[in-house]
């Protein structure tokens, strides 16, 4: 029980600190959110490519995988795992394969939702 509470504390701390760094960058340098997303994705992909990010995932669980750096890590790890198991084909497609479910759900469900919901500002 105590280890579970400690685990959730670690998740909260790591996830919160990653978001706090992004907020600090946004306030201090006025970089737009889209650019910050790309920068964090790149950091995650580089750390994932060298295998450093996996230690953070083991230590903090969802605190490391849910932020966009975890998405970059999943892309890089997928490409590496693909290269090991499927050779050149896996090296090219592995990243997308590892993250395909999330990307597919966000595109498909957004498409579906946009049929039923209209933006409020356009109506007036």
């Amino acid at each position: 029980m105590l280890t579970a509470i400690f685990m959730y504390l670690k998740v909260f701390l790591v996830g919160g600190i990653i978001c706090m760094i992004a907020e600090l960058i946004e306030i201090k340098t006025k970089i737009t959110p889209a650019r910050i997303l790309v920068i964090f994705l790149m950091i995650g992909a580089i750390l994932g490519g060298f295998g450093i990010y996996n230690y953070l995932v083991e230590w903090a669980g969802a605190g490391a995988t849910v932020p966009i750096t975890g998405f970059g890590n999943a892309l890089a790890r997928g490409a590496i795992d693909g290269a090991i198991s499927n050779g050149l084909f896996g090296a090219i497609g592995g990243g997308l394969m590892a993250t395909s479910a999330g990307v597919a759900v966000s595109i498909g469900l957004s498409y579906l939702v946009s049929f039923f919901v209209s933006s409020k500002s356009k109506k007036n």
Partner: protein
Amino acid sequence: MNKAERNEEYLEYVERQTPKTGWFNSLFHAFIVGGTICCLGQMFGDIIKAFNPTMDILRVGSWVNVIIITITILFTAFGFFDRIAKFGGAGTFIPISGFANSISSCAIEFKNEGLVFGIGSKMFFVAGPVLVNGVAYSIIVGLIYYICLLF
């Protein structure tokens, strides 16, 4: 000359009048909201693992992302997400919920411009750069690793 002076005065006035929310406060909000979303993710993961103890950790992570994305898009559709995003700042757009929200809110926003050039292309206004960069990095990492494996 007179105009420049007036502009300067006006800028000072704007500076005085804008409410000082304080950057420390928004940092704290980002920390709280970001941490909470990650904890929710961990909770979903624990529930999945309780039902499926044999599932490997990567598959669990994918499932967690799928659940968070689904909840975010539904929240965006019902209009709750804007309020959370206003409060949380980077705490909502750095977790995977920001990626999902950017796609769904752009799809809803540009619905009026048609199926192909409205929803179909404007959907990726923010998510497009993320996807393009992410896929490009993953191919680079994969190719480097493949070449390293050959020797």
